[in-house]
């Protein structure tokens, strides 16, 4: 990574290095602080949203009494109560546990999820010396080339998406080592399940993105976001609908949440984190909720246009001949807000899915992964490749690709799904009658 060499060389030789280091720190704060905040807010959102979905009102107990009134802040104080509880709770280590693995597992579960945010762009380039001017996209690009703009992405790597997969793949070590090191059979079963599940769905997760990456022609997340841009017809969810749905499903499986939570399996094996208590357990769940943020950020970047807002160009909103000019700083702020807004919306969706579906059985999970989602994602890659070949060889406008992709989705539905739906209840009833006749 030449950039890292630059940074450290700069520290040694001149003041420019310090500026670069400060910029890196600012980037880290801009990107990681919202992630940590969102993680904490998600724990509240999970309870609150789940309770409204189940006709309850959720957390009401944690409160601060001010002038005889109990202030509960909609249950937000439970965050503080949880944190205090985790920190002061007794930390029990099983006497026969492998101390090293037991100690390493929570770190291995949390760290990779934080690292992947390095390559996620929360905004474009911020040309700070021209913050009050109306800049066009070309001008911003020019300032970015001359180094006169601040990149709202911690690290711009050409292999960005691969970095994400590499590090999120490490997450499996956290779960399986926790199960292995706990010296507990249930935890071991949980760890093994986690390993099997995450390895299976990693394949689908990677393959579902391949279709989208073929279109974008790049692995660099900011370039991916810029390819989609302000035109909603180019967003990943429109040009790759099947890929988007499969990606969301596989990503939820990767984050080990219901309906894919068999590694945890509260009602049967309690899970790989069975022997953990106090803050160690808390770190596992910090990891889980960060993964919620991470899945949202990934999905937003690859399939929802990243930080881009529909109709928002670099110089303001444009619709037809109407133009609402906006200074550069306003555009950048709106784009950053839009990115985190998308992440929160996807978090809402993931929590809603969690509190809607029951847990899958192990065999259902494996069947869905290997003979359901994997072939479909492979077919998606093939169809995308063929369509892309047609579009590029005839020089068709990629802005119209969405029509082709919607046609393909419709075709898949008509050829595969619809014929099955013509089957009625009658077959089943007849089948059942035959059985009841035979039984007496």
């Amino acid at each position: 990574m030449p950039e890292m060499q630059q940074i450290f060389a700069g520290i040694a030789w001149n003041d420019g290095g310090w500026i670069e280091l400060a910029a890196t720190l600012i980037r880290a704060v801009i990107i990681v602080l919202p992630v940590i905040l969102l993680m904490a807010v998600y724990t509240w959102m999970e309870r609150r949203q789940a309770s409204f979905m189940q006709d309850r009102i959720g957390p009401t107990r944690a409160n601060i009494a001010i002038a005889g009134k109990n202030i509960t802040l909609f249950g937000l104080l439970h965050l503080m109560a949880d944190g205090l509880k985790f920190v002061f709770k007794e930390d029990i280590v099983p006497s026969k546990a492998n101390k090293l693995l037991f100690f390493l597992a929570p770190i291995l579960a949390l760290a990779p999820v934080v690292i992947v945010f390095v390559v996620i762009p929360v905004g474009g380039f911020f040309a700070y010396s021209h913050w009050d001017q109306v800049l066009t996209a070309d001008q911003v690009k020019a300032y970015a080339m001359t180094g006169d703009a601040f990149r709202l992405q911690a690290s711009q790597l050409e292999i960005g998406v691969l970095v994400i997969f590499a590090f999120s793949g490490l997450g499996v070590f956290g779960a399986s080592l926790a199960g292995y090191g706990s010296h507990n059979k249930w935890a071991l079963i949980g760890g093994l399940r986690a390993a099997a599940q995450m390895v299976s769905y990693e394949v689908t997760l990677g393959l579902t993105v391949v279709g989208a990456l073929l279109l974008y022609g790049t692995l660099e997340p900011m370039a991916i976001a810029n390819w989609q841009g302000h035109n909603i017809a180019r967003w990943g969810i429109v040009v790759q609908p099947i890929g988007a749905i499969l990606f969301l499903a596989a990503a939820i499986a990767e984050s080990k949440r219901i309906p894919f939570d068999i590694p945890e399996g509260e009602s049967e094996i309690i899970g790989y984190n069975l022997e953990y208590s106090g803050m160690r357990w808390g770190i596992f769940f910090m990891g889980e909720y960060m993964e919620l943020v991470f899945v949202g950020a990934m999905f937003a970047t690859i399939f929802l246009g990243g930080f881009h807002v529909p109709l928002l160009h670099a110089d303001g909103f444009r619709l037809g001949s109407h133009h609402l000019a906006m200074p550069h700083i306003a555009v950048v702020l709106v784009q950053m807000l839009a990115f985190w807004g998308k992440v929160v919306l996807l978090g809402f969706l993931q929590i809603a899915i969690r509190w809607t579906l029951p847990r899958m059985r192990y065999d259902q999970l494996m069947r869905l992964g290997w003979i359901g989602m994997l072939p479909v994602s492979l077919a998606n890659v093939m169809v995308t490749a063929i369509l892309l070949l047609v579009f590029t060889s005839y020089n068709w406008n990629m802005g119209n690709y969405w029509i082709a992709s919607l046609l393909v989705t419709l075709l898949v539905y008509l050829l595969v799904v619809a014929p099955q739906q013509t089957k009625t209840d009658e077959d089943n009833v007849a089948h059942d009658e035959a059985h009841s006749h035979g039984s007496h």
Partner: protein
Amino acid sequence: MPGRTVKLTAPDRTAAVQSYVLETGKGLGITLGHFFKNWPSRVPWIGVGVVALLAAAGGVALAFGMKSFSGRMTSGFTGLLVMFGGVPAGLGLLALGAGAYRKFRATPAETYLRLVPYPDVPADYYPPRYRGEHRLMHREDGSVRCVSCMMCSTVCPADCINIVAGNAADPPSDSEKVPGVDAEKFPVRFEIDELRCVVCGLCVEACPCDAIRMDSSVHVTAYANRQDFVFDRNRLMERGDQSQAVQGGHGPGWRTLS
């Protein structure tokens, strides 16, 4: 049963069902339907609106501050005002409108929430078979009905009942002695650890004398000390009452029989 048709409620295993996507969508429709019917009733819309309007005012001030700070902002100030002031103000007015609509509409807004603010306000109704705190029933002379047979402490799965049996005091004179009756035991100590109790009610089922009951309709109270959760005999009898049950097959006045 010949010809009986069983109505199947399980969905057909078509590809549409097995692909999970459509069914997940249906399920989300139901649960999110509940969410969006319950959630608005718990949002302080007026407060949200006021906060948003304040934010809009701050945003307008920020926009003007930016303009004067830069000193060279020629175009785009309208866009700045719209983004920082207009959007929050619009959202705030929407929230105020929602709040006013919810407050002044003729019929109260529909929600699935049926709330009992339970631990803050005591429940106003306990079903007759609600298992509350234990109590020990009295005889007509006010003594405890328990005969220390150990049935309850034996059946207790949580092992939370501790009984120490003693002999009943001899009657004043031989002539008042009722053979086979006065040679009974009574509990010197009768303690229930309510922290260990799993509220299964088996002790009540096991009691042959209608001595122990859980029909006090009193929810187990939270105390600061663990010792306070161990209820002794006197405390259990405080909630007790005279039982109307027939003991010994003689009716309520059996003790005065001669």
